[in-house]
């Protein structure tokens, strides 16, 4: 009992530390103890006199001569990352779709071990998390950081080495998983021997991005920079610590597992998506975000609260009560950073709805930003013990995971790709109407996906809580919802194919804006 009290005290302590830190921050901002980011700081992303950056026909995108050197330094790195990311998006989508089909057509592909559900699903997760979202996010980082710092991207050779290592490591990891060699923990399946290559690849990203920050020519670090610079430190640390072999076993390993897995979302993919949205929403619209001071609270509250939510994946499990409660409380506290970000991003868009018509990339990005708000609200509520007891072991969780990783992160990153590629290559998208088709296929496909699994998941959970119903009921009732998921997933995958067609076509297209090319050469 003694030890329980000590740990209860620790729990209270952790929460008090988080709250205290946040209170001090708010006090400091209110009393001007720290330099509060203000409207001028929010405008650091604009050149003097710069307006909206849409690709509307009457407002073709401009290419700023002053920035041309920056473009030249980052373009090829960004294009490498985008090409690799989109490859893994397709590879991962096809595996996701196959895994989805297997759940309602179990004898469809049961001939080989490589194609069994447990491996298909795992290849899907690793491909989209580490191949698509991570590299798509890094593409945004490598594009945005030099711009907000008004300096060239540094050490691009090392960055390219990192990209090569990361993709070799990931390909080897995915091949290993498909063939049955796995470390066996969710999100940490890639064997640790292969993780060494991935860790080396990740390390290659840290120095160049820090060097770029060191050479910045602006006084203020724009909010996207906080998220990106913190995330590029957080991820390598998380990845290396979690993959050290032989340290943990049993339930200790389970808490480590979910500390890692939820932090990959909270301290890696989320900052990449939020940071990208914080840059592109005001940039495309041509007006600064609504309340820039609020972004500081949003950032630090995310770091404090999001980093401790992971154990809500083990609610009702064989882990200490205080630990579960700690994660539940921090999950609920996530309302603070999420509302801060929501006010900044959504109010900016809501006041400039015209821009959604003019810019399809903005449509993707701001749809994604709204989904971040919804996914986080849902996550906070889902972590409550009363709700979690229904949803915990069901497909509801899968729907929630895709609301965050797909509707939020992936849609933001697709918007980033549509916005950045023309500017990195000096070409226009050959099939602009296909971009709109992609958007609607993804939105409609995802809606079918999400509502199928959400409704199905709740029914599955309720059936399993009802002792009078045999377990079989929870399986049979799920079937139509699993079919719905395959339909939605199929539409989403089709949207991704349209992206690939456009991307390949733009590769073969001629440069259309000669003046920009001249500026790029002249600035070098």
């Amino acid at each position, binding site marked *: 009992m003694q*030890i329980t009290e000590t*740990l209860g005290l*620790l729990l209270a302590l*952790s929460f008090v530390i988080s709250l205290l830190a946040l209170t001090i921050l708010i006090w400091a901002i209110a009393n001007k103890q720290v*330099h509060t980011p203000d409207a001028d700081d929010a405008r650091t992303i604009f050149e003097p006199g710069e307006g909206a950056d849409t690709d509307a026909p009457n407002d073709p995108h401009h290419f700023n001569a002053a920035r041309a050197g920056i473009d030249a330094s980052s373009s090829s790195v960004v294009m490498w990352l985008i090409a690799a990311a989109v490859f893994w998006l397709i590879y991962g989508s096809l595996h996701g779709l196959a895994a989805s089909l297997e759940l*309602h057509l*179990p004898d469809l592909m*049961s001939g080989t*071990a490589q194609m*069994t*559900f*447990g491996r298909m*699903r*795992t290849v899907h997760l690793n491909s989209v998390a580490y191949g698509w979202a991570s590299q798509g996010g890094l593409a945004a980082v490598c594009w945005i950081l030099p711009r907000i710092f008004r300096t060239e991207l540094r050490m691009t050779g090392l960055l390219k080495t990192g990209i090569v290592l990361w993709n070799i490591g990931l390909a080897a990891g995915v091949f290993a998983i498909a063939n049955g060699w*796995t*470390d066996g923990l*969710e999100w940490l399946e890639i064997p640790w021997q292969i993780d060494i290559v991935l860790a080396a690849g990740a390390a290659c990203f840290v120095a160049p991005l*820090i060097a770029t920050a060191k050479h910045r020519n602006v*006084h*203020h*670090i724009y909010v996207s920079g*906080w998220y990106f*610079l*913190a995330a590029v*430190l*957080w991820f390598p*640390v998380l990845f290396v610590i979690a993959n050290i072999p032989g340290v*943990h*076993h*049993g*339930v*200790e*390993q*389970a*808490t480590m597992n979910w*500390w890692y897995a939820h*932090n990959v979302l909270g301290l890696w993919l989320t900052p990449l998506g939020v940071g990208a949205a914080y840059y592109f929403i005001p940039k495309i619209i041509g007006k600064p975000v609504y309340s820039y001071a609020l972004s500081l609270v949003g950032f630090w509250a995310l770091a404090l609260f999001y*980093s401790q939510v992971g154990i809500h994946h*083990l*609610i*009702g*499990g*064989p*882990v*200490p*009560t205080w*630990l*579960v409660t*700690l*994660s539940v409380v921090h999950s609920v506290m996530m309302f603070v950073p999420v509302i801060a970000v929501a006010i900044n991003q959504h109010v900016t868009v809501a006041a400039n709805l015209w821009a959604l018509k003019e810019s399809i990339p903005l449509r993707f990005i701001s749809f994604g930003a709204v989904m971040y708000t919804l996914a986080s609200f849902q996550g906070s509520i889902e972590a409550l*013990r009363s709700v979690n*007891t229904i949803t915990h072991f069901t*497909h509801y969780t899968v729907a929630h995971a895709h609301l965050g990783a797909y509707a939020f992160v992936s849609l933001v990153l697709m918007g980033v790709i549509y916005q950045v590629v023309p500017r990195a290559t000096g070409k226009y998208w050959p099939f602009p109407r296909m971009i709109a088709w992609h958007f609607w296929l993804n939105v409609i496909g995802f809606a079918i996906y999400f509502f199928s699994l959400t409704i199905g998941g709740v029914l599955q959970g309720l059936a399993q809580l009802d*002792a009078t119903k045999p*377990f*079989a009921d929870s*399986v*049979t009732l*799920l079937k139509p919802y*699993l079919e719905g998921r395959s339909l939605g997933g199929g539409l989403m995958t089709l949207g991704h194919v349209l992206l690939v067609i456009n991307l390949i076509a733009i590769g073969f297209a001629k440069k259309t804006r000669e003046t920009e090319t001249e500026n790029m050469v002249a600035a070098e």
Partner: protein
Amino acid sequence: MNRYLPLAITALAILALATLFLVIAPGMQISAQGPTSGLKPYTEAEARGREVYVSLGCLYCHSQQPRSLAQAPDAERGWGRASVAGDYAYDAPHQLGTMRTGPDLMDIGDRMPSQAWQLTHLYQPRAISSWSIMPAYPYLFTHKDKAGPDDVVVKLPAKYAPKSGVIVAKQDALDLVKYLQGMTRQYAPPKDGLRDNGYALIAEKQREATDATKASN
């Protein structure tokens, strides 16, 4: 927020704090518990079977953590008592799981001890339960014209049986079944096992509240 170094240090300090609370502190508390008394390490065959379980990704549909009666009727389904941290002392990698597309397997050895049942079910789950959506694992078996003296033949209904010859379990299938058969906890339940008692505490508080209302009436 204009300087890089303070940002980096604070960001990493926050991650260190989270690691202390989510990994280091619970790790110390859990390892102090040790294995539940009576829990035996895996035999060689069971350990090999567990590797097959991990490599095929059974984890993604089956949990190994029955919940308490205060939360869910897992025990009423015959899935066993609520598990405690010490029950997993020999598990690496842990396979607690987060999904129940299929049932919890913590006590599958108690429920389904028959090797014949398990082999048929692995070869073709729908030969046993028509509603099942579990994958079939035909590659854990071989098709032979005639069974050898040491071969374990899989019993199959006519619908799923080969036209001629027999289906024989490979070593991987036999090991996997050994692992599943070993999934029992026939040792005495621990007294002060470590687990999330949140639901029991909530139920207790609710009982106290009802009692208090009754008393005041």
